[in-house]
């Protein structure tokens, strides 16, 4: 097992990893920018190193500073959290080149799945269903035109180096195609330094369903069930649940079997998530995230498996020690991403937290780096807390969510808690009848 783990992240996820380290008895090192000197992940740290000024580029994305911090503190492993350097294959390589362990997949797998076209090819080759579309980069308009008319409009143009919904364009008909293609390539070049794009059939009312997997170095792969992450605004997930109200256990098991077999074939290791669109009873793979995800707690909640602990154990060479049949799904879990934003306009609301009182009681988990007196700076992501509830049934989980939100006091900054309170009361949400477009309409008052 590791002697000391450096956590190359901030906010709630740095605290999440720190907790797992502490429970494993492994000292951990917090790194932080000058803006985060009084942040919770630093306050509660065993050790901390200031790695740079507020801009992430000069601190949390500063690979040299992070590796230096690991060296001077004697850390032998680095956990990247999510975001920042978590899906950066070069960073993972640098970590390994320095004789440290990167707590995550191999650089090769990060790279493979980072290229969204390559990821689709690999998954297709291993029997995972895809959204109909190109399995190679589309560089010429003529080719795009031919493929789009085969697929039928509307079509989606996506950046090969993109992911998470960034840099996407929809062409509703042939007339729009050239303009949208040009725009998408320009955005892809600006955003990812690579103008390769590809085409997919645009599904009009899909759900976003993803599958959490864990794989050890010996090739044992299990899945922890699905998460329904269809509640999105501008392609950003806001609320996730496990299981999906749209899926049967049989569908989950069938998808799980296919996915775990595919990952075993390619020798994947550590945690990962395969994202699918689901419509008309069909799954279509869209991308794989080779890291811990924000919404991992809902899977932990229904399976009782501590995913971060497992990531660390796997990276240290330990075996999973259980098979798919040992994993039981109990009850229903819902996570809300509480952002420091106005709940109506979504304008960021940085500031000083005058008072903070999280909800408690049965079936309530809060992952947050807030405390009374803490400051939400304007430099980073607006996620300030995750509220996760668990209950025997989905209806009870929603009731619990509503009462927990009513107890949750964050004074001094605006948060999206009131939006989640409204969602918990909405008939569509209670019925589980929503797709990836629902939340935009709900927010606009047209759902």
């Amino acid at each position, binding site marked *: 097992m590791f002697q000391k783990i450096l956590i190359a992240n901030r906010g709630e996820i740095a605290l999440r990893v720190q907790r797992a380290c502490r429970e494993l008895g492994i*000292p951990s090192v917090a790194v932080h920018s*000058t803006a985060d000197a*009084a942040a*919770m992940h*630093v*306050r*509660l*740290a*065993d*050790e*901390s*190193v*200031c*790695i*740079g*000024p507020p801009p992430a580029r000069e*601190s949390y994305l500063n690979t*040299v*500073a992070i*590796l*230096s*911090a690991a*060296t*001077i*503190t004697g850390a032998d492993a680095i956990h990247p959290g999510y975001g920042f350097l978590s899906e950066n294959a070069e960073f993972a390589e640098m970590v390994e080149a320095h004789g440290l362990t990167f707590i995550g997949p191999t650089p090769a797998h990060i790279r493979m799945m980072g290229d969204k076209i390559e990821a689709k090819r690999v998954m297709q080759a291993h029997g995972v269903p895809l959204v109909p579309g190109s399995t190679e980069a589309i560089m010429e308009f003529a080719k795009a035109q031919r493929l789009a008319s085969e697929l039928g409009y509307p079509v989606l143009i996506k950046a090969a180096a993109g992911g998470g919904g960034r840099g996407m364009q929809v062409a509703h008909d042939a007339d729009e195609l050239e303009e949208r293609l040009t725009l998408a390539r320009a955005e892809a070049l600006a955003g990812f330094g690579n103008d390769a794009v590809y085409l997919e059939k645009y599904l009009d009312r899909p759900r976003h369903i993803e599958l959490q997997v864990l794989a050890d170095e010996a090739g044992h792969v299990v899945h922890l069930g699905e998460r329904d992450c269809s509640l999105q605004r501008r392609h950003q997930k806001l609320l996730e649940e496990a299981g999906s109200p749209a899926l049967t256990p049989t569908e989950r098991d069938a998808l799980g079997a296919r996915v775990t077999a595919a990952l075993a074939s390619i020798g994947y290791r550590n945690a990962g998530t395969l994202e699918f669109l689901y419509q008309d009873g069909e799954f279509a793979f869209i991308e794989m995230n080779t890291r811990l995800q924000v919404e991992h707690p809902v899977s932990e909640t229904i399976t009782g498996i501590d995913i971060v602990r497992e990531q660390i154990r796997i990276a240290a060479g330990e075996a999973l020690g259980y098979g798919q049949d040992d994993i039981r799904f109990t009850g229903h879990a819902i996570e809300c991403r509480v952002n420091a934003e106005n709940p109506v306009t979504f304008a960021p609301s940085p500031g000083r*937290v*005058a*008072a903070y009182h999280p909800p408690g009681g049965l079936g309530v988990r809060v992952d947050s780096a807030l*405390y*009374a*007196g*803490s400051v939400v700076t304007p430099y980073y992501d607006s996620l300030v807390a995750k509220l996760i509830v668990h209950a025997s049934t989905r209806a009870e989980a929603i009731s619990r969510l509503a009462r927990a939100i009513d107890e949750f006091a964050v*004074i001094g900054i605006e948060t999206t808690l009131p939006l989640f309170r409204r969602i918990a009361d909405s008939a569509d949400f209670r019925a589980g009848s929503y797709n990836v477009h629902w939340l935009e309409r709900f927010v606009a008052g047209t759902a």
Partner: protein
Amino acid sequence: MSGLPFDPEAIRALAALLKETGLTEIEVAQKEGSIRVARQPPGGAPIVAAVPPAAATSAAAPPSLPTAPEAEDAAAHPGAIKSPMVGVVYLAPEPGAAPFVMAGQEIEAGQTLLLIEAMKTFNQIKAPKAGRLARVLVQSGTPVEYGEPLMILE
């Protein structure tokens, strides 16, 4: 209307009320939001609402790379040379050699003060201005954080 996300007139009025009534704090909460104004009593202790959670847990391990009170003072010094990176400090060009500079010495702008090794690269840290080197705050071979005061140049 001001376009500000609060009503400055309301705050002014509350401030006047604070003064008039001799109160130290007024908080008004409504559907639209809340306003809280506070005034410290003359000679009184500061009103602080936030107590750091870590303060409660004496069991928690102390942070390493501790910032000593001395270093805190030094960081606030206008002549503090702060580390521009995380790494290991070297005060001399090689083991056993004489240090680049010593306390008490007059320094020229651009003169090399020390080296910081980060990822096998030695980075020269140079004097930003001329002056007298008042203090050397770090020892050769020790790690430094970003922003940590290294020397005081007066």
